């Protein structure tokens, strides 16, 4: 993670009295996978809109690969791409024609189209009109489109929405793979396990502000209960505190007697963190 590919400084977006994004700062390094989490209306999509040059910030600044999003959008455009929150495809065209059109716009080689159709498993349906696709197929086409220009920085707004568990896992693998090869990824998601698995760091947004920013592990450790549940041979459940010396002695006693069947850690999940920070469950 050498230099920052995304640098955000005091970024704000107000719609009249609505402060959709209210002064956020963070940076994302090259090859990093960064997650923006938060409840509905927290400002995730608005942040992505500003970073991808489709919405002008009310204040603050943002730089993508060193270029200012307001004054140098043309330098940024070829370097980035986005999986949109909406499935904005040309429905009267086939999947292949959708990709071919964007390949021409981005001046990508035509061979890239079939390559990507293969990658997202749409080769068989490539000739069909998109309006006949299922939600998941459209989502996969959307992902293929976002990769057409081999973006150095890839934005994904709820990319696994509408995907079945297998396709969602494939996409997560794909994202991890891209990241390993140096692509910087900034994504939003409502699936906490997904964020946990994929993201190097996550930022929690609430009402347009960042309320926490760290690696998933640190967040879980900081918020989680430092305790474990011990299940004994008698099927009794005992709670032991990890920082209580008295509990350490009890644990030792059970172990010596061979009484323990299982120990479950009570480390928090990212969802626990979310509920605590955002104030309400998803």
């Amino acid at each position: 993670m050498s230099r920052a590919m995304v640098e955000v400084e005091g970024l704000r977006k107000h719609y009249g009295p609505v402060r959709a994004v209210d002064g956020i700062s963070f940076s994302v390094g090259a090859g990093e996978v960064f997650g923006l989490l938060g409840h509905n209306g927290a400002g995730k999509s608005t942040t992505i809109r500003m970073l991808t040059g489709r919405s002008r910030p009310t204040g603050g600044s943002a730089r993508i690969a060193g270029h200012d999003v307001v004054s140098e959008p043309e330098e940024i455009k070829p370097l980035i791409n986005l999986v949109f929150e909406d499935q904005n495809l040309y429905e009267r065209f086939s999947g292949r024609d959708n990709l071919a059109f964007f390949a021409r716009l981005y001046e990508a080689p035509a061979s890239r189209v079939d390559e990507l159709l293969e990658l997202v498993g749409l080769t068989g349906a490539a000739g069909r009109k998109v309006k006949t696709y299922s939600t998941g197929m459209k989502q996969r086409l959307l992902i293929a489109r976002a990769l057409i220009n081999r973006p150095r920085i890839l934005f994904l707004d709820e990319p696994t929405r509408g995907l079945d568990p297998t396709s969602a896992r494939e996409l997560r693998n794909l994202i991890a793979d891209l990241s390993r090869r140096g692509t910087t990824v900034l994504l939003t998601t409502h699936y906490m396990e997904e964020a946990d698995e994929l993201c190097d760091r996550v930022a929690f947004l609430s009402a347009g502000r960042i309320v926490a920013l760290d690696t998933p592990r640190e967040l879980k450790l900081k918020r989680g209960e430092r305790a474990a549940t011990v299940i004994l041979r008698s099927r009794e459940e005992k709670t032991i505190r990890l920082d209580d010396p008295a509990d350490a002695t009890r644990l030792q006693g059970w172990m010596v007697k061979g009484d323990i069947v299982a120990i479950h850690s009570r480390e928090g999940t990212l969802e626990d963190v979310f509920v605590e920070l955002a104030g309400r469950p998803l």
Partner: protein
Amino acid sequence: MNLRRMLTIFYKDARDAIRDGRVLVAIAVPLAIGLFYNATADGDPEDLTPTADVAYTAQSAALAEALRESLGGAVDAGFKEAGAGEVRALVEQGEADVGIIAADDLLPALEGGGRPEVRVLLPEGGGAGGELVASAIDPALRALAGQPAPAAVQVEPVPVGGEDSADALAVLGFDTYMVLASVVFLVGMIAVFVVPILLAEETEKKTLDALVMISSYPEVIGAKTLVGVLYTVISVTLLLGMTQLRPENLPLFAGTVVLMSLALVGFGLLFGGFFRNANQLNTWGGFLLIPVVAPALAAGFEPAGWMGALVAATPTGQGMRLAVNGMSGEEVFSDPALSFLVMAAWCAAGFGALLLNLRYRQGRS
């Protein structure tokens, strides 16, 4: 502004739009109206030459021949030889405008210095053609009798009611004029309906957001404009082909259609931007067509007062004037340069306002 990207989007739009039922209907309606007028309206241009059917007896054949020569093109006359009774019957039945009955064989009698009797039958309340023929009889007889004509008289029909009232209708005929009005309707439909629908659909389905990830608003606008011009040229060609009309001055006509299209597309896209979705546009777009088509319909009647000002100030009013000139190959309407200027000004105003509006909306998005 990247030309290659603009053409890529243009090519996509041109292919996509014809698959949209709304687009097809918007083009088919003016085409059908044009065809309808062409098929049903009174065809010929208004011919100012009076006509006359002349019936004459065999004895007055020489006189008929002399009349035919002296009338020339002043009267579109048809001659028919018949027996004396039949000549009278033809006039009575309104089949003939003039009847000529001579008692003896006319030519020898005239040459012999006799005064042969010539009876001219004119129906009561007959037309100008008959009167003209009747008035030409005396000079013709003099010529036959060997008397020199005292003067060379030329009859010229002159339209009444001012110098050039409704010239366009007279020159082109009502049907061709209405086909031209349908051309303007077609240009209008594509500019304020079809092209804005393309843009509204991109906004509504958010594909516009995907486009501007690499392209820009001016490129998108440029592509939509080109689609408008292409569709206009194709469908106007289609309409002229189906009505078998060929503009006498093709470059003028084609230039007029393209410039009129450009003058309207800018405003069409501007108004299209105010509608959040294509169906809203479908509902309200019809109202926009009234100020677009009305000046074109009025232009041929050369209205005075505020209607005249409307014709002079609008791109479709001026466009119609140029279209009439282009179709007829004559300068029916004077000041074509001014007409072009007015259309060019609307063109600049439309696209200028559109770019300002885009900048404003971008700032707010």
